[in-house]
């Protein structure tokens, strides 16, 4: 493991320490895993009021077409992602995927059309590779600016809108996946109505030297608590959202990962801009034939959490493993264990009984629809 001295710090590092966070190494950063409130209460607070998450370790990347026309940047980005970027209207954001020649996933990300440029948020552990991938593919036609030192916070939960609107009234007019320039306490910020908790909420990009001041302003509201990576993980698992490196990686395709919705009609077979991304032949063929395996929700019937790595079986004893759990733990809002994993497509129907091997015992679980909790996005 990295020693603390080798770890990078986000602009909120000293605030985390001041708030009494327990810190851990995550993607090369010294990050808060939980605050004194504890993971369980942090999770439930986010679902009941609002949680503030430091996600500054993620990578922010701006792409500007040399022509000055954002559609040229969108067209260029479509060469390395199966997502319809050209159809993304100014002020809108969508979920994206980088694929490889085998149809596997190199990363997932968010992409926004900011009118005169594209704005991407990519995973912390993949950001340098993503930057290199984008530079290689787009440098001929675009200027690429990495903003890896910039602050990024997420404000999530049912009162997130009210809290943010008390500083930036225009936040009330934003719908799910809208992106806008707002000001918080005089600081210009870029706000998207999105997040990874399953709750309504916002991600707020802030100049590094203003991040702590803005975070303190939001935390000054009694309804907002600082939330660590522990609760972030249980919230996203309950929301059925993929964690790159666990639920999706370079060996899983978007179709297997149940992310077909992220590939819009324009890029599918028969669409206006069919294919033209890495692994298109594999992925579009899977749309036709169906994948051999599929990511599904898994709900253990007992109380024992079933963690990532547990092997799945179709019978209570004997037989070979038929799949693997990729994320699993306790869902505080569900009040019991929840998991996700890959199973053969013919065993992927909701309600199918499977077994996971935990400490030498086979525990019964049921294939479950995702998400485990109702999402509350403002559409």
């Amino acid at each position: 493991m990295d020693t603390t001295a080798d770890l990078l710090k986000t602009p909120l590092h000293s605030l985390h320490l001041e708030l009494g966070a327990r810190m851990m190494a995550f993607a090369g950063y010294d990050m808060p895993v939980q605050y004194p409130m504890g993971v369980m209460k942090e999770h439930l607070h986010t679902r009941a009021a609002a949680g503030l998450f430091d996600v500054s370790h993620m990578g922010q990347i701006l792409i500007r077409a040399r022509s000055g026309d954002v559609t040229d940047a969108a067209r260029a980005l479509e060469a390395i992602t199966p997502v319809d970027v050209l159809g993304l209207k100014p002020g809108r954001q969508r979920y994206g995927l980088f694929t490889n020649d085998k149809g596997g996933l190199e990363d997932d990300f968010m992409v926004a059309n900011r009118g005169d440029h594209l704005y991407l948020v990519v995973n912390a552990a993949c950001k340098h590779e993503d930057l290199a991938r984008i530079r290689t593919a787009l440098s001929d036609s675009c200027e690429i600016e990495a903003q890896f030192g910039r602050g990024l916070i997420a404000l999530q939960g049912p009162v997130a809108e009210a809290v943010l609107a008390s500083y930036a009234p225009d936040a009330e007019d934003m719908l799910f996946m809208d992106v806008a320039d707002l000001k918080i306490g005089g600081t210009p910020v870029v706000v998207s109505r999105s997040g990874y908790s399953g709750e309504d909420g916002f991600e707020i990009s802030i100049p590094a030297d203003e991040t702590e001041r803005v975070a303190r302003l939001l935390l000054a509201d009694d309804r907002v608590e600082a939330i660590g990576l522990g609760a972030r993980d249980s919230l996203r698992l309950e929301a059925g959202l993929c964690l790159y490196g666990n639920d999706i990686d370079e060996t899983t395709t978007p179709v297997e990962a149940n992310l077909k919705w992220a590939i819009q009609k324009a890029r599918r077979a028969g669409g206006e801009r069919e294919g033209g991304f890495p692994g298109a032949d594999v992925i579009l063929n899977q749309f036709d034939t169906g994948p051999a395996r599929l990511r599904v929700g898994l709900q253990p019937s007992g109380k024992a959490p079933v963690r990532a790595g547990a092997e799945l079986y179709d019978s209570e004893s004997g037989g070979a493993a038929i799949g693997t759990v990729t994320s699993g733990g306790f869902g505080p809002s569900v009040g019991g264990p929840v998991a996700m994993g890959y199973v053969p497509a013919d065993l992927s129907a909701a309600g199918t009984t499977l077994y996971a091997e935990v400490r030498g015992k086979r525990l019964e679980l049921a294939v479950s629809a995702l998400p485990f909790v109702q999402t509350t996005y403002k559409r």
Partner: protein
Amino acid sequence: MLKFTEDHEWLKIEGDVATVGITAHAAEQLGDLVFVELPDAGSTFEKGGEASTVESVKAASDVYCPLDGEIVESNQAIVDDPSLVNSDPTGAGWFFKLKLSNPSDADALMDETAYQAMIG
């Protein structure tokens, strides 16, 4: 008087039976417990054997048998409500009662002063 192990278990010894739990320090480090698996009465363990499993929201951890012995009772209350371990680790949050094979082995365990010094 309570005895302590380096693995953060406590023992309250009465005659040749020890009531065993995890320390407040261990409970705090583990965070909110959501699942506890306890050994069956009648099962026997050697010192250091994996007698129990606890799971927090994030991770699973083993609880070791502090000395050689036979389980005579497990605390169903913490199976029903694992948060008892967090709220009352040395009281209602006890794990199991262990009939010691060699009660004198307990003499080698730490007392509270030594344990507090170890965890700093």
